[in-house]
């Protein structure tokens, strides 16, 4: 058995499991947010139980549309507030952060524990070794009532990392390279397990970025294991990190990936740095390193959205928010920002947006014809200054 199978077996109270086996696993945390929670709550009420399985293990986060951009959004907030009050579960309702970042800070699970989240990017928690299962609202409702989830043990694909990342290359470039290799359904129903000596150089924040986009390849589970090779995987795919260069996913698919250096002259009108993919302190540092000595291009809106209040606090302590604002960027409140197209920075057909988020489907951030390029914070920052999509290191080498 590999790490994923050992974890599922333990959560199911079994000694062994095999690929394809149906198992009922214990849930260690159940998570939902202001888009998925209202339906989950409605479904939960239909079950007819008078309590959640464990109030300490149910977390609701208002992160997608806060402050409310519509009356309907505010209605969702109230449904969650009422539910939290009635069942005594934890509710974050004051822009504390994107749910995936917030639980990593305040409800951090141990490697191998089971997280069930009504959001497709629940897989982010795989960055710290958690077996994170994204579900729909009904399945979340059932998990909140029973404290269990029924799963089929997936086949596991190992990605065995070796080599050292080059300067200005980060976790986002790793996962975009994998997107290029696997496509949007290359890992459907599978678990992907990242191992190998190469993972040692990746801090947890970068590992979370890599796992975050596991769902974009269709994966059921994405998580980091140890540096040793795993037993019992369906395939082991070597990945030499030395070979990876700064990458961008071009309109309109996260798998339409090309090296930034090959993109040519593409004028940019907006840059977004944030989201559960790349809104952490290490991401912000890469932007500050650029904007400390350069101004945002006059034709670019540069939106910085910390993934949590803890990230924002740390930025303020270091004087970074002032540096960013003085350079011409806007620092918005922690949350999802414009990532899924609800508010705070939507584009029109005239916009070309470089964003550190995870999806660039048509209409994901406003108009269907707004062109979205997914890239790393370093690429986004230099592009914001130059006003064109720019390979990171171009500006920083000039100064250095």
């Amino acid at each position, binding site marked *: 058995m590999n790490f994923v199978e050992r974890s599922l077996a333990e959560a199911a109270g079994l000694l062994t499991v095999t690929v394809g086996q*149906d198992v009922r696993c214990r849930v260690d945390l159940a998570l939902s947010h202001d*888009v*998925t929670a209202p*339906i989950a709550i409605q*479904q939960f009420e*239909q*079950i*007819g*139980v008078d309590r959640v399985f464990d109030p300490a293990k149910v977390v609701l986060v208002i992160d997608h549309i806060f402050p409310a951009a519509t009356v*309907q959004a505010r209605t969702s907030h109230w449904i969650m507030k009422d539910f939290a009050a009635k069942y005594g579960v934890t509710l974050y309702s004051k822009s504390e952060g994107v749910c995936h970042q917030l639980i990593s800070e305040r409800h951090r699970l141990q490697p191998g524990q089971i997280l069930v989240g*009504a*959001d*497709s990017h629940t897989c982010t928690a795989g960055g710290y070794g958690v077996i994170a299962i*994204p*579900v*729909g*609202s*009904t*399945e979340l*409702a*059932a998990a909140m*009532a*029973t404290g269990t989830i*029924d799963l*089929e043990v997936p086949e596991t694909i190992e990605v065995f990392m070796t080599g050292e990342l080059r300067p200005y290359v980060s976790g986002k470039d790793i996962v975009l390279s994998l997107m290029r290799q696997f496509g*949007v*359904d290359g890992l*459907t*129903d599978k678990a992907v397990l990242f191992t190998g000596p190469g993972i040692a150089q990746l801090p947890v924040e970068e590992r979370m970025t890599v796992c975050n986009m596991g769902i974009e390849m*269709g994966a*059921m589970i994405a998580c980091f294991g140890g540096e040793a090779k795993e037993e019992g995987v369906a395939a082991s795919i070597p990945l030499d990190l030395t070979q990876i260069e700064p990458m961008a996913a071009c309109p309109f698919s996260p798998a339409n990936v090309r090296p930034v250096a090959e993109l040519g002259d593409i004028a940019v009108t907006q840059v977004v740095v944030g989201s559960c993919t790349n809104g952490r302190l290490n991401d912000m540092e890469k932007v500050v390193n650029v904007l400390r000595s350069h101004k945002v291009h006059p034709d670019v809106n540069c939106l910085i959205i910390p993934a949590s209040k803890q990230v924002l606090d740390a930025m303020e302590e270091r004087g970074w928010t002032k540096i960013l604002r003085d350079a011409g960027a806007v620092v918005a409140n922690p949350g999802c920002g414009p990532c899924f197209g609800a508010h705070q920075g939507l584009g029109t057909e005239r916009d070309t947006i470089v964003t550190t988020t995870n999806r660039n*489907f048509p*209409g994901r951030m406003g108009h269907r014809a707004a062109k979205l390029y997914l890239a790393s914070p370093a690429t986004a920052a230099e592009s914001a200054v130059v006003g064109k999509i720019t390979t990171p290191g171009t500006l920083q080498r000039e100064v250095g």
Partner: protein
Amino acid sequence: MDKLQGRVWIFDDNVDTDQILPGYAMAEDASKLAAFAMAGSKVADFAKQVQAGDIIVAGKNFGCGSSREQAPVALKSAGVGMIIANSFARIFRRNSINIGLPVMLADVGAKLQNGEVVSVDLETGEIHTATGVLNGQPLSENVLATIRAGGLINRVRQELNISSGRKS
């Protein structure tokens, strides 16, 4: 209950949730979602033409994109009896089962005609046409149990009642 009969609607690969239920319909009340079923697809007037029990037959990666449950709810309330595809995006497949809409894996799109009537045995995976039998993947016991209960909420209700019944 494990056998379904209906007319076939053939679709291609990568039918995403925006085709199944366009983003602009998301704000609609649940009771109105049926009118938007497949409105973003190549059959924009699907909701008008579909009859109760009709079967969607698609290619690879059906239901990719958003995890929102409104997409399978729209299909089910429009009358779709089940979906057959070469592969499904996982969350869509789970959402469908959880709301009591059967989904089956089978590579049969090229062997069926739009509009022909087939009957499907969920337990054996057999797809009976006028001229013969095609094979899909039988639904697992666990999935069948959820479908037979009419969805996950009903199943959980039953299970919770059963366990409290045993205790007393």
